[in-house]
């Protein structure tokens, strides 16, 4: 099983799961915008508290959440450190060769760190608590205007839904193939880059063979069940927009506008 939880859906029943996926997407985008236009420390504290509340609401458990996002937190930390070392301006505290630590560098690096941290946390929560099929449908809904310029949205939606549906299947398949090759003595650790690339061939060739076979079978079974393109499609799962969603949206909008007014202007 994978420890990497970014983008993985965890089925659940708490409030955050029952909200309309479009509302959740809007909220996530607004939170990210807010963190990117914000300059004040109190603003970041508020946003982080909101993130914390959302993690709590999703009931996935702090430990699990941290374990899953650790990788991204390291990456963000690394970029921030690089930013500190290479930015010049303001008061200079330390200087050696091409490296400089200055007040300006520290300031923008900290800002960047919090912004990316909030973005990653918000996106992880969104993807963890929203069914992939609903995400696909929501995105299809957002792209609705494109229909008037001749884009076939039903096909794109279908492709997106199938793509998301097969992510866990293919993850399992990679694990299986990897195990089979490990049993034949492949050693992924302790190898030079060159032989690592060479041994990855033993994973990717069978994987692609399987993907093509699967795609062919899926296409046949869709045709056999009467799928044709170009027809107006209805959806098995209707996304409902409840009164509560409207209220929540109004709340989110008010909160967002208030936040912008207080901290960013």
């Amino acid at each position, binding site marked *: 099983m994978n420890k990497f939880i970014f983008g993985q859906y965890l089925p659940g029943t708490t409030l955050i799961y029952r909200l309309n996926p479009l509302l959740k997407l809007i909220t996530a985008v607004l939170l990210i915008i807010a963190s990117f236009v914000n300059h004040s420390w109190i603003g970041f504290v508020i946003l982080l508290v909101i993130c914390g509340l959302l993690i709590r609401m999703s009931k996935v458990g702090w430990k699990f959440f941290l*374990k899953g996002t650790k990788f991204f937190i390291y990456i963000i930390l690394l970029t921030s450190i690089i930013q500190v070392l290479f930015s010049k301006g303001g008061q200079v505290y330390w200087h050696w060769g091409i490296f400089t630590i200055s007040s300006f560098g520290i300031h923008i690096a900290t800002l960047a760190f919090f912004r990316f941290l909030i973005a990653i946390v918000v996106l992880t929560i969104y993807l963890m608590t929203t069914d992939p099929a609903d995400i696909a449908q929501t995105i299809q809904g957002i792209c609705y205007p494109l229909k008037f310029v001749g884009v076939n949205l039903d096909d794109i939606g279908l492709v997106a839904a199938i793509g998301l549906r097969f992510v866990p299947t293919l993850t399992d398949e990679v694990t299986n193939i990897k195990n*089979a090759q490990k049993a034949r*003595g492949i050693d992924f650790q302790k190898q030079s880059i060159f032989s690592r690339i060479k041994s990855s061939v*033993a994973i990717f060739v069978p994987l692609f063979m399987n993907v093509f076979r699967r795609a062919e079978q899926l296409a046949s079974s869709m045709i056999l069940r009467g799928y044709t393109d170009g027809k107006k499609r209805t959806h098995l799962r209707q996304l409902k927009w409840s009164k509560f969603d409207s209220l929540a949206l109004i709340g989110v909008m008010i909160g967002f506008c208030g936040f912008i007014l207080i901290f960013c202007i």
Partner: protein
Amino acid sequence: MEIKLKHVGYTYSLNSPLEFTALQDINLAFPTGKFTAVVGKTGSGKSTLIKLLNGLELPTTGEVTVGDQVITNRTKAKQLKQVRKNVGMVFQFPENQLFAETVLKDVMFGPLNFGKSENEAKELAEKWLAEVGIQASLFEQSPFELSGGQMRRVALAGVLACEPEVLVLDEPSAGLDPAGNQNLMQLLKKLQTERGMTIIMVTHSMENVAEFADQVLVMKNGKVIADETPRELFSDSQSLVELPEASQFYLKLMKSRQFNNELPITKNELIKTLVKQFGQKGDQYE
């Protein structure tokens, strides 16, 4: 080479919302040179169990002993290579592991990984391809041009060419026709009897268990609920598993379990029993 499991437990995604205990307190031994079948419903932990036998998964608790090497959850990846050389593993639908340009190169992949020279690997590959019944004319073909049955045999040769002492197979005959199944099972039996290999096989076919296995493990909800010979298992009146067709046929015929002779478990035994019971010239049949 003997494999022993002591208080072995295995949990997937420990400490996460997806936590799932697949095995609990398993204690057993796979004796050297024996053919052991592992049966049980889907989700009973069979596949997890066999992944522990060559270190693809490390036990969450307890220890697995392969020959003289002990595997626990603290075992380092480096130490597992020798275990993987000794314990060959054939997964479900092993044809999915084929990748090289030619059949021969694919079979050479394993031996090369385990440190054999190019020439030695080639020799091993040719020897084992012949053993599984692949003609020399196919050696230079792409493995993807072969038929399903041939691909499976090439994949099997790919594992056997690593010369393991123990061979573990996960439903090796799934999707094969009856003749293919029979060929494969006879090959496994031959490896056991002629080369003294230890065979461990997960299967759903009680006919194969009855005909080929020396020992059978029954798994249920992550626990081993029976570890005995096929005859003991099938003769038990509160049978834990579905009986082989031959036994089912005989029980239906007799309408009760009240009979003097042993319950036949294979087709040959059934024929012999029926001839003895109902035929007049039983010896003529033999």
